[in-house]
């Protein structure tokens, strides 16, 4: 919303600077986005009359003009083609300054001295998009005679400041100059000048010109109409044009300008139809027919259906209700009789049609937020007044007002103690009454309470809290003295899973992993790239109805795809090694299609590539579980998960509970993500981890007796796993085995083919007493016998 400060001051007494206006209104709730000073720095540009125009003696394309600026006649050279003798134009005198710091001097044009410059609107600082089409390529020509030598700055309102506001959607009443004047009056206590509308002469009767207005849909809540005859289409007066340009609107012609002017002034979008072009000389407001077509003013053919509301004549649609008029009934230079529309439409219909057609206009942005129906009549009457005042036509007597009856205004009770409770500050009752009255609420006092009648343009005020906000914002939130929370002490807590998260993150951070964050939605192709079979549970995913694109269309059931994506991206950037983890949610539907909220399960995913292997991932997991007191870890080879390398992946358990799977990524999958390194992944059921976590640590006394260390090296078949050997050692050692360290696995010349030598260092210790050789020897013998029997192991000496 652009607010020219000069225009604002027509309706409210303000003797403060634009900056002060902007700051004050920001504090009372109208957020200022910017203040722009128009055409800063223009000096010595005056009104001049062209006495004569001649072709330059030495240049065909240049003209030499004699321009009378009152004090003397200046010779000026110009290239413009739109001038004729007798035109009144802006003349930048020698020594003049134009916006952008341009200085005008006396310049020689091929032997003729130009004393200054004739100016276009652009040279005076207007933006291209507000300059009238016919003036785009030429010098600005005044609409009539003005005093010669007069400074153009006040004449053309070049000294205006424009404040841009962000108006919240609940305040459509602020989308007008008068609406902002009302806010300014309430904020600064300046007198509000209500517009008084007076039409001096009315002729004939509206029913002689039109066959009436027929409203056939509830979406049209009011339709107020008047007729203007003997219309003379011409440019509107200078003051109106400059006002519109300052408000960011391009002048077109007097009728269009007047309706635009009143829309900006009062906030009611208006439309003017060429009455002589209306079939049956009548207006029908109805639903569009399915497949009905309408070419709107922007020359685009629109396909309509019955959800759209149109303004039609007897036969066809001539405008999209509340959005844009049709090309066929547009005001043209030949228009003689105009039917004026001041209507009110259901915001929802306007919004949906505008959205569907991707067609937004000044009208639709106002209607879709909801407008006071009382504005219909006020605005149309104001248009008639301006038509008469500017000589654009003659106002025909009588109005047609469909659905004019309005309900009663509602009242709300404001309890002063409630205001004090919500705002935390005691505001005297007379101040509260003052604020509300200045905002045009009618107030009465009853039993210590304020009864406020809500004005028709304040549909957003529904309950007592809304009134308290009105009081609060005029008192100023910034004037409320802050007070600490009172009441009992409360303990700030973190949910248990977040506490576990913190522990896991600190472990992973400590051993070199970076935390990553990826989108909750992924591409359906991800499940293929991970080589998941058709019946994999991960493929039961939830789809978004309106994704941003196929790549973001499914709610992830695995974190691995995101992890692979980022590993691939990093490798592609030439990063040698990446270690990453993410704790996030997967979304498991209870049924498909989804009818109720899905289960959101927390998952820890870990991934890396670089100078690391399977065992690094395994150790990583053991460190995490170790920090959480999760013991009884055991591993089973993972053979049926096609995302992983079948010989280099495992399921990790705590006891019988599955915690997750991990290992090297299957080469096909790595290839799908264009990774050249061997990537490793782990996906861990974090909910299970949280459930299994045991943070209760009990101290174990330090050993009093010495330990004994024995080494065993055996040659076994390649297929025998180290874990199986360790199980036997542990079983024989009873409680005396303190630790088993695998210190060597050897394959090569010293052992047979397909065999390996495995060497352990076993530490024995008792908490009861010093161990003797004979006890340990017995255990060692048992271990070796068992290894020989079960795995055909050969002791290596």
């Amino acid at each position, binding site marked *: 919303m652009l607010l020219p400060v000069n225009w604002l001051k027509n309706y409210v007494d303000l003797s403060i600077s634009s900056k002060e206006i902007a700051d004050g209104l*920001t*504090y*009372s709730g109208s*957020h200022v986005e910017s203040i722009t000073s128009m055409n800063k720095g223009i000096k010595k540009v005056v009104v001049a009359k062209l006495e004569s125009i001649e072709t330059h003696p030495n240049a065909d394309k240049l003209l030499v003009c004699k321009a009378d600026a009152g004090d003397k006649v200046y010779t000026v050279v110009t290239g413009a083609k739109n001038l004729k003798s007798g035109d009144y134009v802006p003349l930048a005198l020698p020594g003049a300054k134009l916006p952008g710091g341009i200085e005008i001097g006396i310049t020689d044009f091929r032997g003729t001295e130009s004393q200054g410059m004739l100016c276009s609107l652009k040279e005076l600082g207007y933006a291209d998009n507000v300059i009238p089409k016919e003036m785009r390529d030429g010098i600005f020509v005044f609409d009539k005679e003005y005093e010669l030598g007069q400074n153009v700055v006040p004449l053309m309102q070049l000294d205006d400041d424009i404040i841009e506001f962000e108006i*919240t*959607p609940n305040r459509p009443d602020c989308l007008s100059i008068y609406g902002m004047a009302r806010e300014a009056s309430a904020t600064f206590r300046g007198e509000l000048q209500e517009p008084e509308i007076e039409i001096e002469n009315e002729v004939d009767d509206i029913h002689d010109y039109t066959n009436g207005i027929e409203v056939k849909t509830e979406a049209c809540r009011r339709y107020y109409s008047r007729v203007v005859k003997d219309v003379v289409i011409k440019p509107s007066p200078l003051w109106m044009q400059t006002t519109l340009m300052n408000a960011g609107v391009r002048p077109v012609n007097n009728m269009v300008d007047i309706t635009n002017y009143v829309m900006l002034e009062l906030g009611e979008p208006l439309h003017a139809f060429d009455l002589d072009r209306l079939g049956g000389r009548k207006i029908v407001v109805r639903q569009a027919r399915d497949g009905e077509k309408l070419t709107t003013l922007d020359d685009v053919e629109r396909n309509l259906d019955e959800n759209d509301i149109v303004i039609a004549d007897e036969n066809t649609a001539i405008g999209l209700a509340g959005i844009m008029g049709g090309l066929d009934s547009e005001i043209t230079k030949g228009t003689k009789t105009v039917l004026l529309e001041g209507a009110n439409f259901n*915001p*929802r219909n306007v*919004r949906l049609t505008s*959205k569907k057609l991707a067609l937004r206009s000044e009208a639709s942005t106002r209607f879709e937020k909801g407008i006071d129906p009382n504005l219909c009549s006020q605005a149309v009457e104001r248009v008639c007044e301006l038509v008469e005042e500017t000589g654009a036509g003659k106002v025909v007597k009588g109005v047609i007002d469909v659905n004019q009856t309005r309900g009663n205004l509602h009242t709300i009770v404001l309890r002063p103690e409630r205001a004090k409770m919500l*705002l*935390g*500050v005691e505001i005297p009752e007379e101040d509260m009454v003052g604020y509300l009255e200045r905002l045009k609420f009618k107030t009465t006092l009853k039993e210590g309470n304020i009864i406020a009648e809500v004005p028709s343009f304040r549909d*957003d005020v529904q*309950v007592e*809290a809304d009134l*308290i*906000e009105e009081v*609060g*914002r005029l008192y100023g*939130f*910034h004037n*409320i003295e*802050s*007070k600490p*929370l*009172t*009441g009992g002490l*409360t303990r*700030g*807590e*973190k*949910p248990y899973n*977040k506490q576990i998260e*913190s522990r896991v*993150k600190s472990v992973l*951070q400590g*051993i*070199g992993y*970076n*935390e*990553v*964050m*990826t*989108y909750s939605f992924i591409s359906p192709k991800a499940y293929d790239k991970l080589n998941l079979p058709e019946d994999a549970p991960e493929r039961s995913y*939830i*789809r*978004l*109805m*309106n994704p*941003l694109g196929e790549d973001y269309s499914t709610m992830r059931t695995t974190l691995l795809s995101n992890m692979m994506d*980022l590993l691939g*991206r*990093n490798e592609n950037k030439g*990063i040698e090694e990446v270690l*990453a983890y993410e704790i996030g949610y997967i*979304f498991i539907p209870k049924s498909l299609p*989804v009818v109720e*909220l899905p289960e*959101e399960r927390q998952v820890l995913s870990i991934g890396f590539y670089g100078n690391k292997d399977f065992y690094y991932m395994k150790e990583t997991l053991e460190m995490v579980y170790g920090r959480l007191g999760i013991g009884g870890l055991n591993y089973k080879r993972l053979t049926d998960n096609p995302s992983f390398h079948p010989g280099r992946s495992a399921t990790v358990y705590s006891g019988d509970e599955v915690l997750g799977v991990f290992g090297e990524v299957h080469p096909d999958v790595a290839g799908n993500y264009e990774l050249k390194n061997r990537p490793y992944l782990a996906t861990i059921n974090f909910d299970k981890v949280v459930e299994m976590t045991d943070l209760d640590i009990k101290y174990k006394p330090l050993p009093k007796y010495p330990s004994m260390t024995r080494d065993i090296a055996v040659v076994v078949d390649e297929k025998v796993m180290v874990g199986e050997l360790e199980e036997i050692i542990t079983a024989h050692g009873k409680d005396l085995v303190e630790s088993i360290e695998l210190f060597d696995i050897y394959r090569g010349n010293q052992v047979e083919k397909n065999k390996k030598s495995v060497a352990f260092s076993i530490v024995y210790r008792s908490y009861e007493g010093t161990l003797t050789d004979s006890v340990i020897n017995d255990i060692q013998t048992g271990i070796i016998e068992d290894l020989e029997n079960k795995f055909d192991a050969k002791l290596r000496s």
Partner: protein
Amino acid sequence: MKERLEALRDAAFKEIQDNIDLNELEELRVKFLGKKGEITKILRDMGKLSAEMRPVIGQMANEVRADLENKINETKEILKTKAKEQRVASETIDITVNTKDIKRGHRHPLIQTAEELEDLFISMGFSVVTGPEIETVENNFDALNSPDNHPSRDLSDTFYINEDLLLRTHTSPVQIRSMKKYGAPLRIVSAGRTFRYDDVDDTHSPMFHQLEGLVVDENISMANLIHTLDIFIKELFGEDMKTRYRPHHFPFTEPSAEVDVTCIECRGEGCPACNFTGWSMELLGCGMVHPQVLENCGIDSEKYTGFAFGMGIDRIAMVKYGIKDIRLLFENDNRFLEQF
């Protein structure tokens, strides 16, 4: 004999110098004091002496032995010290060599920021709660007083799963869940992922993060809200921060306000980052919980009042770390992550 002993002492003192090494010193010790050493040799000849000379020479021999032992021990200490000094001097290394054998991991700046914000509120007596990313239309809009025709409900603003389920567009549904579950009084914060139908550019992402706070109790007022947020802002950005509460509109609070904070870059002086206003705009939204929202959650809006606030964590992290492109937060480029 006396002369032999004196000559021996002189000879030994001459040889035991600190320019020899420890091995040579040991050899000298053996040579003079050892079982087959010089002193022993002399003492072996004691038998040839007269009875009265024997104690005199014996005493003298002991004196010479003691003198030699002292001299050897002193020299040993000197030589040891010298050897240690030499070793230390020879062990000087190039301390500018960088090995990079140890790597630490790095926390994601956004998640780190979210956790810091939560911790700040925990220290102020708030409890952290969480809520699901997929929400009901009821919790995300209806119960929060959002009008039926509000544009934020459109398919072009919100990701839907079906007509009843969506990706939450803010963390505010956690308010609804908490009020329904715990009732009043209540003091909670909740941070998490939120989603809006925005194409990706340097300031927009379809997934972003919010932190939401809620206090419900008897006699909770706007003055309490301002006090709480002022403390929070100062803790987060520094004691010199100022705040500005501007009336605004949210369907679920009444009155509602937006909070501007002293520009973090220029500390209020005015700079391009704040458009020369000195303020970082719209850092937080807040207000007094709308009575209808309290009632929707079964809380007596006459007895209880409350305040709520919300903020974009992405924005705060970006301001804090000077990140100009939100996409960096989601790309997980190692070179980016390792800066935090």
